[in-house]
């Protein structure tokens, strides 16, 4: 579904040359929910922007269903961390969700149906006529998610979407993402710096190294499909997985660039130098 091959991104400007992403290769299968987690400042956002066609990579390529991504592809939707700056404050909630659909040249009836359905899915059916700034942070991010859903993407890219909301709202939004993923069968790539969130949400967790970024480890999350905040987070397996990811990230911070390693068994999880 989504192939990232040898992705490399170097920022150049005012005499400084920063290699944000060195060499990233991984794939995301159709219908998968993959979490990308890494130390802060490790180029997660850069990676996501390259995948979304918002940034041109310096080297390597991103393929969506076998086709090379050169600009934002129509089958892909983006949810940004800064919901307050991602929704258009001059449009009501309904218009915000509808605007990308107009661009897709959908009929009015179809647009209305998609808007209603998407807002209903995120529990904001009543907020159609409100302005985004009249809503709480969590609700605004729900609107952003609804906008992405209405766009009917095959791939949904989420860039630390819940980093700026409070803990309780965050838990609700995590469950919302799980539910939407299971209901709609969208492929989701979820970037976060929160280890618990990555393990709780993902079917698979990709641990990234510190910048310049490579894939430090790929980890399959073998938690049951039906997860809930109360039981999943206290299960022994959850604790093992999060400890493992935590160790990996600590190793990534200490070790700097590490060569790419395939999903290693837990017992010798540390990368070899």
């Amino acid at each position, binding site marked *: 579904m989504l192939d990232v091959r040898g992705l490399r991104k170097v920022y150049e400007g005012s005499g400084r040359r920063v290699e944000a992403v060195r060499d990233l290769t991984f794939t995301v299968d159709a219908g998968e929910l993959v979490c990308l987690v890494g130390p802060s400042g490790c180029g997660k956002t850069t990676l996501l922007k390259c995948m979304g066609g918002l940034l041109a990579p310096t080297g390597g390529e991103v393929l969506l269903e076998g086709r090379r991504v050169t600009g934002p592809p*129509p089958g892909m*939707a983006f949810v940004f961390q*800064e919901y307050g*700056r991602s929704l*258009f404050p001059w*449009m009501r909630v309904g218009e915000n969700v509808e605007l990308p659909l107009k661009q897709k040249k959908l009929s009015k009836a179809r647009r209305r149906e998609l808007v209603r359905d998407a807002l209903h899915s995120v529990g904001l059916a009543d907020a159609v006529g409100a302005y985004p*700034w009249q809503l709480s942070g969590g609700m605004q991010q729900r609107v952003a998610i609804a906008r992405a859903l209405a766009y009917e993407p095959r791939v949904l890219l989420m860039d630390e979407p819940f980093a700026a909301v409070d803990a309780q709202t965050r838990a609700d939004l995590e469950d919302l993402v799980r539910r939407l993923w299971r209901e709609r069968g969208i492929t989701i790539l979820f970037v976060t710096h929160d280890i618990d969130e990555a393990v709780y949400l993902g079917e698979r967790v990709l641990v990234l190294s510190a910048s310049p970024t490579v894939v430090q480890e790929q980890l399959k999350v073998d938690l049951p499909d039906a997860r809930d905040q109360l039981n999943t987070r206290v299960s022994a397996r959850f604790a093992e997985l999060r400890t493992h990811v935590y160790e990996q990230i600590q190793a990534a911070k200490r070790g700097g660039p590490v060569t790419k390693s395939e999903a290693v068994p837990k017992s010798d999880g540390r990368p070899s130098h």
Partner: protein
Amino acid sequence: MRTLLLRTVFVLALPAVLVAVWWVASEDSTDVYWPPLSTILETFPDVWTADRLTGDVVPSVLRLSGGYALAAVVGVGLGTVIGSYRRVRAVCEPVLEFLRAVPPPVLVPVIMLFAGIGDTMKVTVIASGCVWPILLNTVEGVRAVDPVMAETARSYGLTGAARLRHVVLRSASPQIFAGLRQALSIGIILMVISEMFAASNGLGFTIVQFQRSFAIPDMWTGILVLGLLGFLLSVVFQLVERRVLGWYHGLRAATRRSP
């Protein structure tokens, strides 16, 4: 109901005081150039007849609207182009700063050479003065489009005209309106000035005519009409702004409540 009453009192209090002060201070005036307000008000209905309104006020307002509209179109259009492209901005900015610094009334004699002494000249003068605040504010507004919003637009395939209409211009609209507001007062000034040069009707022309024929109370009524016109236009402007920028005021109030 009470708050409405109170607000009306607040709005009208100061104008009422000022008029009263003027009335009392000028009551016993025998100075020809400074007639009592009562005389001015008595003259008012005689001077501003329906004929005069259609013959002088309407042409003035039409010139103002023409020049202002032209300035708005040119200012927003050019401003969007200049604001969107860094290279264009680098080339244009010094020239714009220079042109802006030239006081528009100075241009009247120059523009007369090219545009004659008719309405074209007046509209051009008004437009040439009004365009700068609109242009420069549009440039700033377009430049300041939030990068996250710009990326959002891009990722959802909003490009070209749709991006311009739904994202760039809307996002810049608070700044554009700030420019339009400044331009409005400049426009009224230039309307009067342009009519003082080679005109056969209009408010500026009429006031100068009265002054030259020593019809001083009549001249004062003309100034009152100008003041009223300015006030009326600013009220209309505020109504439009409140409608178009309702979201902006709401957003600002919301951010003030929870920073």
